[in-house]
């Protein structure tokens, strides 16, 4: 029972949150919002195919919204709201057709994602979106009946936005490459400069070399200091012997009767 109560509370919190968006229907899976089924099936299928191409070609979202005739002027706002809700900040386009409205179909589109593009790039891209919308509207009007206009407009809009999606990718790619070149250029530039860390390392290295040199030099000197050379003497040559006058050290070792005790007898 406690669990149910908690779920009810959560549901109560969730429902008002969605309630604020109650005018915006859920995003249609095929990109076509036609609650009254005004579109012919064949037209719908053709449009779905075109919308899919745009999505696969340039990751662009194209929506078609068919509203009843009483939608009036508020239909534009509703369309924009739906486009922003479904398309998010990515590139999207929306064809709005209000049944029996001579001004329909109308075209909307946006790209609001934050980018690191230059102002020029951003401006040009936004202009391209508007041109694509205008182009789709212009060409679609050449068709005879409303459903054909919608189908034509959807196809053209899909093609245009699909192409712009590719343009968007190209801009991203070029910018990324430019950043890479700039980074590598900066790295190369920094390498040619003498960095303080490098100087410190070089100084430490030189000091170590000097220390090792001095250490071994002193050690060698110490070793030489350890050497002792007896002075040369005029030999006391005797008994006509050329190299030695003999020695006077003689020791006789004797084993005693008590185990291995020894006695040494010195003889002179």
């Amino acid at each position, binding site marked *: 029972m406690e669990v149910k109560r908690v779920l009810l509370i959560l549901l109560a919190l969730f429902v008002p949150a969605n309630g604020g968006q109650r005018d915006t229907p859920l995003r249609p899976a095929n990109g076509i919002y036609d609650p009254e089924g005004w579109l012919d099936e064949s037209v719908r299928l053709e449009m779905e195919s075109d919308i899919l191409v745009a999505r696969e070609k340039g990751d662009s979202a194209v929506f078609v919204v068919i509203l009843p005739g009483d939608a009036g002027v508020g239909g534009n706002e509703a369309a924009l709201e739906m486009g922003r809700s479904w398309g998010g900040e990515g590139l999207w386009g929306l064809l709005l057709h209000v049944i029996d409205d001579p001004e329909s179909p109308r075209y909307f589109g946006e790209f609001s994602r934050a980018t690191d593009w230059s102002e020029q790039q951003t401006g040009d891209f936004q202009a391209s979106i508007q041109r694509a919308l205008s182009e789709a509207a212009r060409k679609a009007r050449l068709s005879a009946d409303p459903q054909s206009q919608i189908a034509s407009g959807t196809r053209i809009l899909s093609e245009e936005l699909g192409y712009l999606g590719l343009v968007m990718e190209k801009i991203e790619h070029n910018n990324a490459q430019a950043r890479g070149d700039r980074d590598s250029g900066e790295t190369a530039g920094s390498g040619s400069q003498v960095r303080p860390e490098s100087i410190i390392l070089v100084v430490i290295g030189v000091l170590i070399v000097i220390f090792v040199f001095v250490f071994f030099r002193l050690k060698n000197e110490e070793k030489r200091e350890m050497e002792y*050379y007896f002075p*040369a003497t005029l030999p006391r040559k005797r008994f006509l012997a050329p190299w030695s006058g003999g*020695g006077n050290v*003689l020791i006789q070792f004797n*084993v005693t009767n008590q185990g291995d005790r020894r006695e040494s007898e010195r003889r002179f």
Partner: protein
Amino acid sequence: MSKRRDESEGSKKYRAGSFAISAMTCPGCRAIIEEPVENCSRCGYSGHSVVKKFPFAAPKIERYIDPNGHFGPADRELIDEALSELATRFPQVRFSFCVVDLEQETDPREFGFWMLNASPVNDPVEEKLRPWTILLLIDSANDRVSVTSGYAIEPFLNEEQWVVLLQFSGRLFLRQDYGVAVLNFVEGAVGVLSEGAERTERRLSLGKAENLGGEVRWK
């Protein structure tokens, strides 16, 4: 400890008697002689006498003169190592260890005297080394040991210290464990040579002070 005297003082030579503290004796009759003589005043002994006494070719003076193989490879390795260490301190000195079986009547001191003088000197290296040679002669047949030194090193050695050093290893000599006995001898020789070096330095300092820069007294 000291400068390289042979390089810094060129051919300057001192009287050996100025440094020597061990007596000179006749190899034949052991009589003490006061001054170097060609023949012993008491027995008439000379180098000719010893050559007649040992009328055969003397062996070449080498580090090990060991016809009966008393020094094994391990012994030699340890002794060589000790000698290398000693040479870093006293580079002039050369040691030779001889193990022979002598007749009871043969005095090892005289035999050593004969060896150092009768052994051939065929090259300049040996000519330079021979006066700085210290020969340890071990008579394995009679458990006797003697030390004989060349003219150059002789003045700086105190023979009493050799005696003490050898007595220390008496048990090893008796067991004919000559490897360890000689190793002890080499290690103790550093002390004997060091004492000689210090005594020499004292004498040299005293000589310079007395002469006040004049001609070296010992020359």
